[in-house]
């Protein structure tokens, strides 16, 4: 891996705050995600992880602070703006439309068109081609998502997120409710995204997963950054202490 201190972050947050009424969901958050690196965001429920992901993907808009992509500030007005600037998000629950098939799900919101009509053939062809590139074997891309298992859906969701050539990929609880084998498949995909030079950000409760695959871990606690560590230089105990607040320090 390259020395991350010299590389420019693909995505950077500076002093981002978000309030919902009286509740401060995010308080002065800094975050840097580098190309070719998996950054894990961990924290207890209510630590602000989901809000953070929603701010990055422009589902929410921050009250204060900046979002920078490749060093220059961007202002996202909608999720599609965020995606156009190279940020792909795989949400835990809102990733896919169950009643639509694999092929259509790959292109929701960006349907290829021929004149007035949706170019179904191109959609199918590119879906097959793209899944092949990722070594994901789906024999029938006309299978409805609702017929797939959780792991299969997750893999399709990740595939879709990177299809549009995103440089930063956010994954919200990518292994929640997945079996052991499915978790390994998802992990392989995530690792290959990193190897392809993407900046990967995963929000996860799964410490096993974080310590097996992430390069750095950023701990959130009560809407603030409780600490940032390289996985190789920290221990599970330390991270858990940061999560629960038994160990404190200023934002790294």
């Amino acid at each position, binding site marked *: 891996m390259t020395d991350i201190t010299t590389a420019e972050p693909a995505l950077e947050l500076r002093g981002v705050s978000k309030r919902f009424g009286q509740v401060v969901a995010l308080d002065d958050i800094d975050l840097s995600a580098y190309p070719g690196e998996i950054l894990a965001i961990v924290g207890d429920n209510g630590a602000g992880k989901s809000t953070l992901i929603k701010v990055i993907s422009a589902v929410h808009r921050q009250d204060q602070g900046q979002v920078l992509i490749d060093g220059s500030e961007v202002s996202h007005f909608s999720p599609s703006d965020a995606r156009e600037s190279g940020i792909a998000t795989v949400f835990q629950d809102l990733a896919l*439309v169950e009643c639509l*098939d694999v092929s259509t799900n790959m292109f929701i919101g960006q349907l290829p068109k021929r004149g007035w009509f949706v170019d179904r053939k191109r959609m199918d062809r590119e879906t097959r081609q793209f899944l092949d590139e990722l070594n994901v074997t789906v024999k029938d891309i006309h299978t409805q998502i609702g017929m797939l298992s959780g792991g299969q859906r997750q893999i399709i969701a990740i595939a879709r997120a990177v299809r549009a050539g995103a440089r930063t990929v956010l994954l919200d609880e990518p292994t929640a409710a997945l079996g052991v084998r499915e978790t390994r498949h998802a992990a392989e995909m995530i690792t290959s995204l990193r190897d392809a030079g993407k900046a990967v950000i995963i929000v996860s409760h799964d410490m096993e997963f974080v310590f097996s695959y992430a390069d750095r871990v950023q701990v959130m606690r009560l809407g603030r950054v409780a600490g940032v560590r390289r996985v190789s230089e920290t221990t599970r105990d330390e991270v858990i202490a940061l999560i629960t607040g038994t160990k404190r320090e200023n934002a790294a």
Partner: protein
Amino acid sequence: MSTQVDDIVARTPTPPKQSTGGGSFAGFVHRNTQLAGIVIVIAVLVVVFQIGNPIFLSFPNLMELLRSGTLYFIIACPATIVLVSGGMDFSIGAVFAAGGVSAGMMMVAGVPWPLAVLGGIVIGALIGVLNASLSVYLKVPPLIATLGVFFAVGGAITVITTGTTVYGFPSAFTDLGQGYLLGVPFAVYYAVIVGIVFWVLLEKTELGYNARAVGGNRAAALANGIRVSRHDLIVYGLAGAVTAFAGILAASRLSSADPAAGGTSLTFQVVTAVIIGGTSLFGGIGTIGGSALGALLFATINNGLAVINVNSLWQNIFVGTILVVAVAIDQARRRRQFRSRR
């Protein structure tokens, strides 16, 4: 790395290759179960009615049946897209009356009929946009928003017309709804055109794909960059326009526009026809073909019961039963299809 999703296929009861079906794999399953059921019900009814009175299958009666069916079908087309988008439209009856009455009043006031027809359609579209605005901007659930609009618009029409029927239309206008071509009422041709247009819209265009995405998972659609609010405005606006057009056609056929036309009965009949046709009440799933069969079923029951001289009140008992059965089938299918939901 090699990420195999090899058991995707193993888990799926290998559906027949359907390369043209597009996003309508769901529709494919439908056509094979629920729609086959409707066809059988219609076939049985046809046999019963034909035995009851041999006039039933005569050409003039079939044309009459088709003509009444077209009324439901034309309105059911945009209603299908509204329901597939996860919405609901209870304002149908009032928009229907508003279309006929407003176009009628314009003609009586001396507006040339083509402009009056256009004016009526525009008023319908505006009411539709109002429906969508209430749910998009004020967050009123579509069911309540459209119900409120139903009452408000219905009331407004009664006030404006003082409840009296509007009549005195130019014959060029009344010919639209009363004419025949090759022995078939014009209305049937309109219905075929509207049906084809909406089939293409739902199955082949971005609007249709977005409808299924928005109805199937609104949050996902939004997160994936579909402009959901804009979609709602278009779909409800379209529904208003086409429903008003149907009201204008009815005014043309009857040479008069009744402020009390449509009403709750039309609203419920159209929504019921759409749901019987396999469109899911919960969005995402539905086809124009299914709605055509639903409308045909309605027209068959209406016409047949009249032909064999059975009290038309039986119609409601029939329809109520079929509706509940149709939704029960929809629920069972959803459970089966999405059983693997994590």
